């Protein structure tokens, strides 16, 4: 009896594509998040090089190292790189990697959005740096109309700047849409909004914020490109309104300032909670405050226009909004610090960087407070005092906060921890660097009124020593930052094995493997509190202790 048995025929396995091709075409949120984080760190390095070139020019009075045009090109590239290619994608990259894991999702809801978003970001970065083959923008960090119009900057640097930042911003908006849909629709059973980890909540708030401010900038950039290329008069004098550009662009820049701080606070909240072994001092207050920061901070956009010809009522409106920010910022800082109190602090690298971030962000934000008093702003605006305040807050938030997040989630992404001793050296170098680089600029700006964006300063203005120290400090800061980047690269293959749950965090990303499988989770737990991982550990401990009861286990079966 010849039986006809079904036969499985395999013509060999499908050919494996090379690793880079898999990564580049992946729609997995973990791959996209890792690419965003990695490229942000790369652009952080490039931004540092540009910053150092400018600081070298400003090390001594009336230096001739950089020409005025080269200086403004460095300034414009530095601004675009720091904001659009480093800080925002670093924040979004961590959100995109971690938030779906924290809510127990098996992937994101609209993975193509993330993939196209990443592609647009890469395209924007390519356009920005391709301009180095011809003419980079000379318009400064925020090229104000009408300087940005064709009549005053005739080469196509501004066009390229607008295209580059526009592509990147469109990418951020798409990623924000995916994140929001994921956070709304794919939470694990029992993961109510009130149980959402604070970092995932920060992702929600930041995505909503990006959904509001991104299109505003895109509209402004479109108008600018029409002005320059099709004789439009949106911002040009003679029919257009130069101040319109300022309103629209400052809405975006103020909003993204807040987005970066919200990211930093979200990451710090997770780290403080994990490393002290305590729940957040008050979750509701922190979550509400993050929303208030996003709303009030964006409404304070005219803070940047206090010397412009706007009515004094609007100036007081801006002052009210930025002083109101004191309340949510204060509440977040209070709750973060109170979380540490009574804990058992393991002083590992993530906690170290997070403590540094809280300290420097507080210095930066308190200094910004002086700038929100209208009369004081008339003196302090566009002085190096403003540079120092903003850099304390943003280097504190994006770099110290970003590095805290990097050290904290690096084991989840790679299965290895970053070298602890290099992390410590890097941290203390960065602390020395940020203080040396920006404290002198506070003094130069508030005592002598040294103005920003200028390619030189005059020896008679009494700021020589301040600028020299600031230049040396920037070099020290850069050295510290590079150490952490090197540490990350080296630890990817050679760091100590981390295991799946190295820090004892309370959220679900520590429930899965390190690095996680493409589908994130094999089984999903029922979430019953805002600390699901703690519940799981308790359940395991309970079961283990019950199983180890000798009188029950080792009794011979009768």
């Amino acid at each position, binding site marked *: 009896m010849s039986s006809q048995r079904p036969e499985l025929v395999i013509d060999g396995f499908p050919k494996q594509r090379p690793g880079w091709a898999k990564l580049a075409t992946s729609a997995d949120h973990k791959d996209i998040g890792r690419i965003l984080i990695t490229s942000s760190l790369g652009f952080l390095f490039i931004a540092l090089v540009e910053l150092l070139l400018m600081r070298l020019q400003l090390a001594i009075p009336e230096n001739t190292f950089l020409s*005025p045009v080269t200086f403004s090109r460095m300034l414009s590239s530095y601004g675009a790189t720091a904001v659009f290619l480093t800080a925002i994608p670093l924040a979004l990259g961590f959100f995109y990697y971690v938030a779906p894991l924290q809510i127990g999702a098996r992937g994101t809801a609209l993975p193509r959005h993330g993939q196209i978003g990443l592609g647009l970001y890469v395209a924007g970065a390519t356009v920005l740096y391709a301009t180095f083959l011809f003419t980079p923008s*000379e318009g400064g960090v925020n090229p104000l109309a009408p300087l940005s119009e064709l009549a005053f900057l005739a080469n196509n640097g501004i066009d390229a700047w607008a295209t580059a930042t526009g592509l990147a911003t469109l990418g951020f908006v798409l990623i924000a849409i995916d994140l929001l849909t994921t956070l709304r629709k794919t939470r694990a059973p029992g993961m109510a909004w009130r149980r959402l980890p604070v970092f995932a909540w920060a992702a929600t708030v930041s995505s909503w914020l990006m959904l509001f401010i991104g299109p505003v900038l895109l509209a402004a950039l479109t108008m600018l490109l029409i002005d320059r290329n099709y004789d439009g008069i949106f911002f040009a004098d003679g029919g257009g309104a130069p101040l319109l550009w300022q309103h629209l662009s400052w809405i975006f820049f103020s909003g993204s300032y807040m987005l970066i701080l919200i990211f930093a606070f979200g990451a710090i909240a997770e780290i403080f909670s994990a490393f002290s072994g305590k729940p957040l001092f008050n979750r509701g207050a922190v979550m509400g405050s993050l929303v208030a920061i996003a709303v009030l901070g964006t409404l304070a956009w005219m803070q940047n226009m206090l010397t412009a010809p706007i009515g004094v009522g609007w100036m007081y409106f801006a*002052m009210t909004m930025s002083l109101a920010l004191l309340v949510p910022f204060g509440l977040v800082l*209070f709750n973060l610090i109170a979380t540490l109190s009574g804990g*058992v602090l393991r002083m590992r690298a993530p906690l170290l960087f997070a403590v540094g971030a809280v300290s420097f962000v507080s210095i930066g934000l308190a200094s910004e407070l002086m700038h929100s008093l*209208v009369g004081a702003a008339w003196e302090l605006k566009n002085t190096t005092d403003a540079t120092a305040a903003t850099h304390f807050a943003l280097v504190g938030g994006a770099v110290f906060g970003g590095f805290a997040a990097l050290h904290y989630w690096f084991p989840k992404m790679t299965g290895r921890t970053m070298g602890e001793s290099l992390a410590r050296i890097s941290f203390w170098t960065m602390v020395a660097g940020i203080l040396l680089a920006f404290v002198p600029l506070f003094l130069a700006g508030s005592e002598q009124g040294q103005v920003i964006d200028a390619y030189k300063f005059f020896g008679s203005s009494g700021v020589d020593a301040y600028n020299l120290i600031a230049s040396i400090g920037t070099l020290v800061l850069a050295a510290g930052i590079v150490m952490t980047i090197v540490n990350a690269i080296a630890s990817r293959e050679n760091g100590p094995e981390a295991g799946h749950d190295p820090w004892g965090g309370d959220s679900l990303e520590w429930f899965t493997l390190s690095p996680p499988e493409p589908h994130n989770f094999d089984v999903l737990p029922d979430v019953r509190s805002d600390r699901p991982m703690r519940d799981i550990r308790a359940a395991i401990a309970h079961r283990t202790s019950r199983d180890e009861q000798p009188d029950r286990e080792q009794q011979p079966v009768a």
Partner: protein
Amino acid sequence: MAPHSPGTDQIDTLLWIGFFAAAILIVVVNVALLAIVRKHRGERGAEPRQVSSGRGLQFRVGGGLVLFAAVLLVVGVIFTDKAREAPANGPQGLESKTAAPLTIEATGQQWLWRYDYPNGAFSYYKVVVPVDTAVELELHSTDVIHTWNVPSLFGKRDAVPGKTNRVVFRADEEGVYEGNAATLSGQAYASMRTAVEVVSPEAYEAFVKQQKGEIEEAQNRVVELIENGETP
């Protein structure tokens, strides 16, 4: 940045208030942070206290912050209002038949300031004003945005094309007060400076008269040359 006008006196006080407010916040946050980190670091085997706060404490802290912000808001409005009102002429100032301040037009252009005096005279880079006299500068721009900035007398104000902005001050001492432009306006922005030369009312009258005379003389000479068929 020593203040030399009633407006900058107010701003100087406001700056100090802002400085102390910021300093208090920085010290409180950082001392609390570092003290807590020092106190609670790494006791091996100890069990962290699982405490969190109720609403009452949050409302008290939030209320304190609201109060702090509200006080700063009121202080900010009071001092800013004082700083922006046009001061009256002092006893040594220019005798004026009207109460209106001496109005001078300041026009920013890449990369120089032009000042037009009431009698039709004008000057570039430097503006001459009488001491102890309320002066109002009307800021205009012919090309891009320029920020007029003389820290001792007023601070900063933007000259925006198509718009008029206003600076008021009353210099209390004769001398020269300088400042840099403060908004990136193109290649020579770093060298775009201006100076306010404060002189006695008599010297001011003499200066605008002489300046006007010289400008008229030069213009008449050009007209003469053209009428004689010569190219100037």
